[in-house]
């Protein structure tokens, strides 16, 4: 269960991790400045397991992996949006950060709502309003990457088998 942090359409990776921080790669350092461009209080407000909700085209702009690294390290357990920009989407999967395209949920869920996500069943439950939303679950190949905690972790665990 996580508390929702809600943003609008076209949240770009520049506001998630501004350009001046691109020399950093320590996840904790990126978490400490995450969302600085639109919500500087986010790193102090976020709790482990919280959920980020955005509108259309979430993560547009730069290819910087710093953005999903920072969001994940800040404690966000998944991002729900109407749609995602493609590089951000791919980066998030590679890092094991679930990114769920669920337009109705993204529109209706409010900041501060309590939300749970059943990844296997493809159901988002809003505990605050009682509403449920379906999304298309990840295919098994992507689910394995998410469960392993990212493509690197999956490759390393596959190598040990």
């Amino acid at each position: 269960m996580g508390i929702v942090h809600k943003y609008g359409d076209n949240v770009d990776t520049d506001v998630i991790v501004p350009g001046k921080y691109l020399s950093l790669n320590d996840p904790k350092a990126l978490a400490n400045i995450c969302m600085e461009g639109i919500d500087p209080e986010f790193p102090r407000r976020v709790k482990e397991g919280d959920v980020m909700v955005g509108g259309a085209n979430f993560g547009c702009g730069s290819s910087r992996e710093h953005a999903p690294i920072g969001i994940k390290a800040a404690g966000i357990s998944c991002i729900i949006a109407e749609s995602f920009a493609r590089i951000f989407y791919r980066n998030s999967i590679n890092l094991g950060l679930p990114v769920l395209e669920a337009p109705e949920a993204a529109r209706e869920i409010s900041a501060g709502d309590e939300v749970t996500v059943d990844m296997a069943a493809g159901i988002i439950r809003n505990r605050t309003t009682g509403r449920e939303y379906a999304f298309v679950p990840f295919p098994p190949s992507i689910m394995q990457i998410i469960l392993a905690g990212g493509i690197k972790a999956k490759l390393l665990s596959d190598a040990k088998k």
Partner: protein
Amino acid sequence: MTITEKILAAHSGRDHVVPGELVTARLDGVLANDVTTHIAVKEFRAMGFDKVFDKERVYLVNDHFAPNANINAATASKVARDFACECSVRHFYDVGRMGIEHALLPEQGLVLPGEAVVGGDSHTCTYGALGAFSTGMGSTDIAVAMGTGELWFKVPKTRKFIFNGSCPRYVTGKDLMLYTLGKISVSGALYMSMEFAGQAISEMDMDGRFTMCNMAIEAGAKNGIIEPDEMTLAYVREHNRLNRPFTLYRSDPDAVYERVDEWDVSSLEPVVACPHLPDNTRFVSEVGDVPVHQVVIGSCTNGRISDLRAAAEILKGQQVDRNVRCIIIPATGEIYRQAMHEGLMDIFLDAGAAISTPTCGPCFGGHMGILANGETAVSTTNRNFVGRMGHPGSSVYLASPYVAAAAAVAGRIIHPGEVK
């Protein structure tokens, strides 16, 4: 098939592909810069790789914070330098020989028609101007690509854009692209390929075509692409200094497009993207009275020789307004030298503009021209997101070199034809 589908098919050993299909494609080039290499190298090592798939086909360019803006930037660029040395990466470019990656690679003959190239930078889509498939990736994907020389792709649908008629004076590739973004929005080509065609494209020089494909990502596209023609071949003949083989692909007459848009450009005027999205466009005459504090002419979008010539055409015999800092950044050393030989540098210096060594610096708010709270810039770069060039309370208007140079002279946004 479309040109994009043909290139992806050829690189995945298939005769035919359709949109939505997942393919594993062999890569002709893998690029990263100083802000993406340091993360890619960390992942590369963690995944157990100890050598790159091809020392001739990995391209590393320290361009973003170069020359090193601060200690963190110096540390990050050193990771790229050490990695290039350790893995014997032949095409590593650093200060002095460096240029902005997406201007540098085509100039050095490192990207050719028909190739499939990925880069740890979203503007890697620039090379579509050569009739290549190229797209941006994050550092983890780049680590895999550097280690294996291949990656998986979803074959994109294609939106085709046909620009009929000739561009009027002062209307450039930048204007056509901003116009397109205004029409289709920053998510109008999400996950798709954008294919550009029509008389205005045929007549456009390579620099203008690079500008257009460069900004395909601003519509959410996977790649932008233009079928190679005589103009492309002339460019390749001049720049293929490594004499690498290449293949020309064209879209079939019965290729399937998600959508085709056709616009007449013969009566367009220059277009400006107002804060804070590249699709928030207006014609320059409709922008209103906007006082300007900084003008940036450069970047992977508009830092090529044609762009500097356009800026010089406006700035010749003029003075930059007392309230404006005008920063001009030739994208590569060769462009810098060419501009010097053509006398453009004298025009810029006489006008009171500053000339910088090649760097991405101000475009992404890194260094070399950061904006304070409340300041406004007119920039030939590609993004005007909140805080893109500095303080979250600053504003960026995106425009062509003509419009940017005119703003430098007037101290506000005007039509370049109004500079007397």
